[in-house]
């Protein structure tokens, strides 16, 4: 059995969370409260020291330094001041009367997200995938590759048809959409099957901690 205090605390918290599987109980409530408090605190510290300090403080320090030593205005680093101002505007939410100003930084962030996602997903999801679906159906002398190609092209094609919104899924079109949803279901099934293993691994490691590290039953 472990003689480290930390290991005992960890074991208590592990069992406390697991007890939720049986039913909600005070020990779980306690662990849950600890979890919420500690994790909120963890991210608060990390965001402050790992993001706020280097992004705002350090960049402005560089900007001021350049100004003092070279007398030049370093636009790039000064622009972080604007980021800091946006952050302060966000905090104006705490003042009910002018809280609506916090919509400005929100607008900047949503605009950034919309612009970046539009291009990046179009390139990496759509164009690249379309490109790799444009393949010859028939591969001379290789039956597997031929069947594989056909499945990929037909599956992608029909799958996309399923997502058509402005046309009723009827007749041949509906048939294709139907085949499409079969492919989508196979995708889901396969991903799920693959996941079972992943999740079991996590539990194995946790159980190994309990019976091995904590209780010392496994040599």
């Amino acid at each position, binding site marked *: 059995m472990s003689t480290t205090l930390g290991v005992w605390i960890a074991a208590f918290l592990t069992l406390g969370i697991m007890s939720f599987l049986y039913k909600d109980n005070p020990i779980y409530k306690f662990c849950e409260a600890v979890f919420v*408090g500690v994790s909120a605190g963890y991210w608060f510290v990390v965001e402050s020291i790992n993001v706020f300090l280097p992004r705002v403080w350090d960049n402005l320090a560089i900007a001021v330094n350049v100004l003092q030593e070279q007398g030049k205005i370093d636009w*790039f680093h000064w622009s972080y001041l604007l980021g800091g101002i946006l952050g302060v505007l966000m905090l104006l939410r705490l003042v009910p009367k002018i809280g609506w100003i916090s919509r400005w930084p929100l607008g900047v962030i949503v605009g950034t997200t919309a612009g970046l996602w539009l291009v990046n997903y179009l390139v990496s999801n759509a164009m690249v995938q379309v490109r790799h679906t444009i393949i010859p159906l028939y591969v001379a002398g290789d039956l597997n590759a031929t069947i594989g190609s056909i499945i990929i092209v037909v599956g992608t094609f029909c799958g996309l048809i399923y997502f058509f919104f402005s046309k009723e899924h009827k007749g041949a079109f509906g048939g294709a959409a139907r085949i499409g949803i079969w492919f989508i279901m196979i995708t889901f099934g396969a991903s799920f099957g693959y996941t079972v293993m992943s*999740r079991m691994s996590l539990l194995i490691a946790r159980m190994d901690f309990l019976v091995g590290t904590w209780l010392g039953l496994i040599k």
Partner: protein
Amino acid sequence: MRREVPLIITGVVGITLIMSFFIPHTPFNRLEMLFTHWYQIVAAFAIVLGILNLLRVNLDKAYKRQKDWFFGLVVVASFLLIVIPGFLFSGGRSFQEPGTPFFQIYFYVYVPLMSTMFALLAFFVASASYRAFRARNKEATMLLLAAFFVMLGRVPIGYYLSSWLPENYQLAAVADWIMDFPQTAGQRAIMIGIALGIVSNSLRVILGLERAYIGGE
């Protein structure tokens, strides 16, 4: 004013960032990074709002002796338990180095909680598959079969069950085959669809047609 200004900001920023993808010239080549950093800065500021809300709700609960008030106090106490050593006693910027008080709490309290919560998925995956994988209709049958073969093909049991078959018919090969072809095809259709959905949704946001996130007057 309360509504128009943020919408205009959103539109201008969005279009600028789309343009920056095609323009290698400065300052456009740096905009993506700059705006992402701004987001991080705003998020770092905003976390204060969340934390204040969390503390207020829980202290309120304790003060008014509402149901489970004790656990409200636990939330506040454990928040302070990590924040105070984090800011004051863990060597400033090297607060995450092994050995600091912050790291000890991280390692012995936060990590086990996180790992265990994650590990609960093993149980949930089992109960969900028991319920969901039934051959109720053709679609469910597809789901079931794909899951069944992949599940078996990925572990040694699958090997023992099918080792008498020729190599390409063994469960591992079947699983690989499903993953390589039908799975890839389905995934691709979903991915292309998502890309189009994002293009359309982003445009609606940039054009100000979709503005729920901003609120009203």
